[in-house]
């Protein structure tokens, strides 16, 4: 039996077993994303990039405790997604976002196993799984989450985390010696001003699809060797939230670099309404002008009720390494009952 079928059988078994348990549990959230828009390049679209498609799913989050306190945390977050750009059966897939177990070794010290954020940049400290605006992770690493093992601890006045992962992103595979090592040290997350310093070294795979089942097709069977250093920063600026990150390094010897800056503002008279503005720059070859992407993205976010948020975003490519595009996207996001 091919390995792919074994994976599918194992995942189907785990899904059935867990679903019996979790639908009865308290910490179970339903999730749905309806997204659509118009793009100059692709006309009517039913998704925003690879990571945000029309989908339904759930998140299950549980802390296991005994009389000495918490010792284990489980997080499973899956979505069944539809890719409007694909045809027939190839248009459907299961995205496994979070799928990890974290065992507590002491206060501030834990080890994590499964599918989770690489320890680099803003992504591990922000929740972007349902938002139109993303961090630099897709451009920088190629994916937001990967399979592997992680460790985090406190170091005096700083927090740090390390991760050793497969370098495959959503898919569970290891080819051409793929791997990903990341590390991030930062000021504590409990402060409103945070700064982080990250490192990355690895050989990563690039996939055509951003889902776990069926196994995504690889763009190339060869890995790309990546080295990076990055700095991220978050702080309140008057009545605005500000966040930024920069990363630089090389891909197979070619210099790459980029960054993003994002402002957020809550309208005082109508606090369900938030306005955001993001600028994202990335260059896959610092020497080559045609290899750069610069996108400006204003987004309006309105919380319709405690469970449903509507987002309207405009994505304007000032430069693009492929065809420059202008896209308007409307999203309804549901998280709850």
């Amino acid at each position, binding site marked *: 039996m091919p390995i792919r*079928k074994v994976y*599918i*059988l194992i*995942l*189907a078994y785990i*899904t*059935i077993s867990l*679903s019996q348990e979790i*639908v009865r549990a*308290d*910490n*179970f*959230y*339903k999730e749905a994303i309806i997204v659509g828009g118009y793009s100059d390049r692709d006309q009517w679209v039913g998704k925003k990039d690879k990571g945000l498609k029309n989908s*339904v*799913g*759930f998140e299950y989050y549980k*802390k296991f*405790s005994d*009389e*000495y*306190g*918490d010792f284990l945390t489980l997080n499973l977050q*899956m979505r*069944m997604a539809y890719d409007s750009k694909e045809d027939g*059966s190839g248009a*459907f*897939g*299961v995205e496994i976002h979070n799928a990890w177990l974290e065992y*507590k070794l002491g*206060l*501030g*010290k834990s080890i994590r196993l499964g599918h989770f954020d690489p320890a680099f940049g803003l992504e591990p400290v922000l929740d972007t799984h349902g938002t139109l605006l993303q961090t630099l992770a897709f451009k920088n690493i190629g994916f937001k989450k990967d399979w592997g093992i992680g460790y985090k601890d*406190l170091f005096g006045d700083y*927090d740090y985390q390390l991760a050793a992962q497969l370098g495959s992103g959503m898919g569970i595979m290891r080819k051409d010696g793929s791997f990903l090592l990341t590390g991030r040290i930062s000021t*504590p*997350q*409990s402060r*409103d001003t945070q700064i982080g310093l990250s490192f990355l070294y690895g050989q990563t795979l690039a996939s055509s699809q951003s889902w776990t*089942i*069926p196994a995504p097709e690889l763009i190339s069977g060869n890995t790309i060797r990546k080295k990076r250093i990055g700095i991220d920063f978050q702080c*309140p600026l*008057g*009545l605005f*939230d500000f966040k930024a990150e920069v990363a630089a390094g090389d891909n197979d010897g070619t210099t790459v670099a980029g960054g993003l800056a994002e402002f957020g503002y*809550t309208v*005082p008279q109508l*606090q*369900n309404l938030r306005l955001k503005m993001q600028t994202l720059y990335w260059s896959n070859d610092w020497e080559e002008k045609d290899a750069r992407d610069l996108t400006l993205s204003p987004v309006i976010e309105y*919380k319709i*009720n*405690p*469970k449903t948020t509507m987002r309207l975003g405009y994505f304007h490519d000032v430069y693009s390494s492929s065809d420059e595009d202008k896209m308007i996207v409307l999203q309804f996001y549901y*998280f*709850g*009952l």
Partner: protein
Amino acid sequence: MYKKTVLIILMTLCGTGNLYAAVGCTLNDPDRDIKRLFSKATNYKTEFITIKDHGSEELAKEIEAKLADKLEQTYESIDVPYAYYTVLKKKQTIGYVHGVNQKGVYGGIQIILATDPNGVIIDCYYQKITSPESKKFKDKKFTKQFVGLSLADFYTKDLKKKIKDPTKNSAGDYFATLRGIKKNLILHDEFKLNNKYDKYFYEDKNKDEKENKSENRKGPKSEDV
């Protein structure tokens, strides 16, 4: 084969029942916060508790009566889970850490309280506040004034006389802070302290009713704390 897996997941999702809504106020860095707040802590136990689980609409009405204000429908709905961190030294409970979201003038405020096992505040801080005068609110000179208070003080005293607004032009966020702390203590008393402080509320309420009858007057409710 994967189509079958997808179908199973869809069927599972369609058949689900009692679920949660928005996420309440959790600590951004609980291990570090608890280590800082309780130097003798060895660990903590995390629980997510909703008003819906503890009495639903009836409890919501009781909380509104104790708070002397309505609960806000978007951020204070009955299915918002509140995170409770029971702080442990080995097996012994040495305190609690709990936070709430409170609507402020310029956006959501997150107020975190550390309390001893009897519900007396031992530390108070803002995890998030957006205000032109946020520094004055976050200043220890202001937040330290809440240390030593319990829900009994909020029920029986006019704390606006004791703890003054530290700002010039942000009275709205000052009242929001007092409301948020009181709401936090009311929920804590309900969820973890078995309504230990109810006697002060009902005693005070009875006293108020008597005074109201004798003076035959009604006071404004919006700024009552």
